[in-house]
């Protein structure tokens, strides 16, 4: 939850613009005015249709892309457009799992790849091994079975898991998942998301969650920003956002199935007061109606 005592957001984005291939005939204006703020310890969803600019935004959060006029990205009080900002220190705090896992894996062996970050953190051999083991357990890749596998010979979902493990192994303060659970099977996804929520809730890790899966977003985050055509289009608590299905549809988005059920029951004058976000909430609400 948002801690209003924090004077300054951990990440503050003001009127951010971004142009790819600036000054070439192929120039693309990807961001046209994004404003948002993220406080330490929050869980934030960023959603929007294909090409809305989500990946472009989150790449500004670990210095892969740098803001320039007129926009601003302030990270822990540092203006990211300042060339003297140490990107290396920021990458140790802000872990970004790319949307394309194959862009993240560059060592030959899975174990080495996941150990890469911890090695750069200067951890000892023993500590590294423990980190790798821990991270692989977090994502559900069996350590013995997968540590010596070639990264390129993994199945699609296994590759995703390896990419996530590589970032988790840094134990970052802020974890950004850019559609990173795509391709992870339902069992793996459920376990993985539960463990990530645990890191968020009990260890204070800030979570930034980009996903095309509304059901996942609804169950993971406290607040949501909707991005459309390079701009912030909506913002609010998760329940507020999913209570506006018509607006969401206009932006190519939707709501969880259980939320749709609640909205339709309401249209039939059944008294569903809150908007359920999960199956458990919906079961409770419907049960109340059936027994009233």
């Amino acid at each position: 939850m948002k801690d209003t005592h924090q004077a300054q957001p951990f990440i503050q984005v003001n009127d951010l613009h971004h142009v790819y291939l600036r000054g070439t005939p192929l120039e693309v204006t990807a961001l046209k005015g994004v404003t948002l703020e993220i406080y330490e310890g929050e869980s934030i969803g960023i959603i929007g249709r294909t090409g809305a600019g989500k990946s472009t935004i989150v790449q500004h959060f670990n210095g892969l892309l740098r803001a320039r006029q007129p926009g601003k990205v302030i990270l822990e009080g540092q203006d990211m457009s300042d060339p003297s900002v140490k990107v290396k220190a920021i990458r140790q705090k802000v872990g970004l799992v790319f949307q394309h896992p194959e862009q993240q894996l560059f060592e030959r062996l899975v174990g080495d790849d996941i150990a890469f970050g911890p090695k750069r953190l200067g951890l000892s051999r023993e500590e590294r091994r423990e980190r790798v083991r821990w991270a692989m357990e977090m994502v559900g890749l069996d350590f013995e079975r997968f540590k010596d596998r070639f990264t390129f010979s993994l199945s699609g979902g296994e590759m995703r898991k390896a990419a996530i493990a590589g970032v988790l192994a840094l134990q970052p303060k802020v974890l950004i998942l850019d559609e990173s659970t795509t391709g992870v099977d339902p069992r793996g996804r459920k376990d993985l998301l539960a463990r990530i929520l645990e890191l968020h809730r009990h260890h204070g890790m800030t979570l930034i969650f980009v996903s095309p899966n509304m059901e996942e977003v609804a169950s993971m985050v406290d607040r949501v920003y909707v991005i459309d055509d390079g701009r912030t289009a909506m913002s609010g608590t998760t329940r507020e956002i999913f209570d506006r299905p018509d607006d969401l549809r206009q932006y190519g988005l939707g709501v969880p199935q259980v939320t749709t059920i609640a909205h339709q029951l309401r249209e039939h004058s059944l008294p569903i007061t809150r908007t359920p976000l999960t199956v458990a909430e919906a079961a409770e609400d419907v049960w109340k109606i059936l027994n009233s």
Partner: protein
Amino acid sequence: MTEPIIRIENVHFAYNAQSENPIVALTDINLEVMPGEYLVIVGHNGSGKSTLAKHLNALLLPTQGDVWVNGMNTKNGAHTLTIRSTVGMVFQIPDNQIVATVVEEDVAFGPANLGVPEDELRERIDWALDVVDMQNFRHRAPHLLSAGQKQRVAIAGAMALKPQVLILDESTSMLDPAGREEVLSAVRRLNQAGTTIIAITHYMHEAVEGDRIVVMEAARTVTQGSPREVFSQVEELRALQLDVPQVTELSYALHQRDETFPPNLLTVEEIVAEIIRRKELEVAT
């Protein structure tokens, strides 16, 4: 009687089969797909789905057993080109499919290779780009697109082949809900017009689109049936830890509280109607 368009007989496949550490990816697979069928394959990571898909257009050949496409054995190299024009595939990682530096050329690549004449080629590209709503991007560079846009281009490329069998390997995974709905309805239309569809997905609300669902687990096919048959085995699916659609999960949760509530509803319409019917009954009595 109609012949199956795809017949998989006793197929066994291992990666690095000759090495000390072969990785067994398919064991004892037997499966027939009829022309015009809409088949969905689900299963955990590493269960063999993509490996199986790659056997259907001769990208991989069985270590043991046979795969037949329209009666042609995939092991017979003389048939490879015909097989690849019969079975079109959208790969799980769209980047691996990009071959050209301009979107429209990328989409044209497959059909042009098959010798589709210029006029028709134009038509097909237009049509395919329309289907995935990428007309405005036809002159862009495919590798400089967002992830979902790349996925759309990959889908257009396979559709432009107008294959008899279209394989979609998690091809809607990075699309927004509206985009996914558009692609699914385009696939549905193709299927109604006679194209055989084989879709691999982790999303159970996509799996309900199929005529038949095959569940894979640890290199084998473990269960199959219509979506309703498969999803009504909620306990079995739980044991396999596969997902069920939220609607089904809700209907099962309500069934556990009240045995008379049906456990296996599949769509929002069904469950809303059921709840309303119960309220009305209550009012009437």
